[in-house]
């Protein structure tokens, strides 16, 4: 209504000016991303498909054609998927609790989320090795309580890896979901209830779809972080759980095979892009 009321000759140039301004604002970040991110990626792709004899797919054949490296790809996927799933299951109710909390409690809860982000991932991963090793706090406590007699092997297991990864990446799941939940009008649930929807149906048909954008953002963040994690698997499980990230490091630092490392990097990036794109599609509004 208001748009129609605007005099047309004035409206047209102002739109153009707005577009110019938008381009102006985007330009610096565009230059930086193109220069330090896109360009190296193109080079990476180039390195992965070129060797002394010209174009080749040998690196990709080795990566996706040998059982060992397929296992490495699967390890990365498994780490990413499990971490994301468990982080989501913990974060979703936590985000609601956070949004319901009032006053000082909310500040304390938010601080417990943000403060760990200030600590290096290496510090946090080391903290987990201290907690989980045979003479670590967890085993000592369990033995002192008489629950177990001998220390359980926790460090360097997949459980330790997933526990550590979930812990370290959790804020990246909670915060985007919390941002959405905090804005969610409680009237939606009330409207659904008065229309005859039980709490479960209200959750499935109203709350879940309305919080989907937060879930998608959290999933995209945590998956892309955990699928490519290097420090966490290196410190918490080590050699017996090679991932794409550790394979890349080995190819560059030990084996001196930049072509193969580049190919692994491209595959890792492709996986992350695929998952992020797929989840973004889920959150699109209906026509």
């Amino acid at each position, binding site marked *: *209504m208001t748009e129609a009321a605007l005099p047309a000759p004035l409206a047209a140039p102002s739109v153009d000016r707005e577009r110019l301004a938008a381009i102006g604002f985007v330009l610096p970040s565009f230059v930086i991303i193109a220069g330090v991110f896109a360009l190296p990626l193109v080079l990476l792709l180039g390195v992965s498909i070129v060797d002394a004899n010209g174009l080749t797919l040998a690196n990709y054949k080795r990566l996706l054609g040998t059982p060992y490296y397929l296992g490495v790809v699967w390890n990365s996927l498994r780490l990413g998927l499990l971490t994301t799933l468990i982080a989501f299951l913990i974060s979703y109710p936590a985000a609601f609790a956070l949004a319901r909390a009032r006053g000082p409690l909310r500040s304390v809860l938010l601080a417990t989320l943000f403060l760990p982000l200030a600590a290096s991932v290496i510090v946090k991963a080391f903290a987990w090795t201290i907690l989980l090793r045979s003479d670590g706090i967890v085993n000592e406590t369990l033995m002192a309580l008489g629950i177990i007699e001998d220390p359980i092997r926790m460090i360097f297991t997949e459980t330790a890896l997933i526990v550590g990864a979930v812990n370290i990446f959790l804020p990246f799941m909670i915060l985007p979901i919390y941002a959405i939940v905090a804005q969610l*009008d409680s*009237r*939606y649930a*009330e*409207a*659904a*209830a*008065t*229309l*005859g*929807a*039980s*709490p479960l*149906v*209200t959750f499935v*048909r*109203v709350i879940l*779809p*309305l919080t*989907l954008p937060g879930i998608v953002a959290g999933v995209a963040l945590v998956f892309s972080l955990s699928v490519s994690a290097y420090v966490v698997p290196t410190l918490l499980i080590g050699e017996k759980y090679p991932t794409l990230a550790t394979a890349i490091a080995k190819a560059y630092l030990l084996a001196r095979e930049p072509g193969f490392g580049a190919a692994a990097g491209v595959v890792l990036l492709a996986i992350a892009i695929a998952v992020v794109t797929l989840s973004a599609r889920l959150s699109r*509004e*209906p*026509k």
Partner: protein
Amino acid sequence: MSEAAPHLVVRGVSKKYGPTTVLDHIDLTIRRGELVTLLGPSGCGKTTLLRAIAGLAQPDTGKVELAGRDVTHVPPHKRNVGVVFQSYALFPHLTVAGNIAFGLKVRGAARREIDAAVERALSLVKLGHLAGRRISALSGGQQQRVALARAIAVEPDVLLFDEALSALDRKLREEMQVELRRLLQDVKATAIFVTHDQDEALTMSDRVAVMNKGRIEQLAEPRELYLRPASLFALNFVGLSTRIAGTVLAAGNGKVEVETKVGRFSALGNFQAGSPVIVAARPEQLRIGEQSEANTAAGRVRSVVFQGSRTLVDVDAGAGESLLAELSGRDGKIPIVHDEIRLSWPVTETFAFPMEAQA
């Protein structure tokens, strides 16, 4: 008003939030097909009462019966009520049709039945052409209609409107008031409106409950509410009035003689001699000059406000008291500011209210 059986009964409902009493032993009985407004200032408990009827707020004491069923402890999704919220609360992830179909879908209705009900509800609110639209693509007035259609589509036992029109601009709101009333009468809906807008209350309802501090001060038809306010609060909240403070000199037969700083008045009311009271009359009862069986007072015109069909004249009667007269175009000469005039009004249209009840 027919003698139909009570359709919605609220009995002795109280509700406290912490130390604050929000609802104080509310009794309210509504017949099938009746349109009732809960009218009052913010914080009077009207919205809480509506939420208690919807099942969204649990009363501390008392009972709620709907369509012959005790629903006091029944959760909202099993009550069969329809609520239109002030913010509409339309589901942004669903289309217009999806919103209207929601209630029937979650009740497990058959596809064909849902489609028919959606079409019926959409045509009722004249939005058939917008079925496939997203909610964000609608104007405020259209969203209001969709919210109404969504609530009506499930054929609820009672429709509850929580300040449902207050987000619309004035002109649209006045149009919707008339249209909504006609629509609700057509579908024979029982409805309760919550509003702080007296015009909305008088336009839309068969009966109005004036609420103050968690109590219903008066439950009456709009006309009776205006002509025979039961309390000073009801008088103040609906319409304008002239109010003068005084003390009862003599009382008897439902009438009192009241001594005020601007003269002695007769008024309707039951008080003991010596009680402090407020004497009040509606402005359209005040006439220039004398009438028989009337109170009179004189003063100097302070302001004259022309409002089309009527003119409001504010008169300074001295001693800090003022008289408000509403003169229609047929009343002959309209005074101008600084005129000295004498006003009179019938004793039978003069009320006395206890002083301490002033809100």
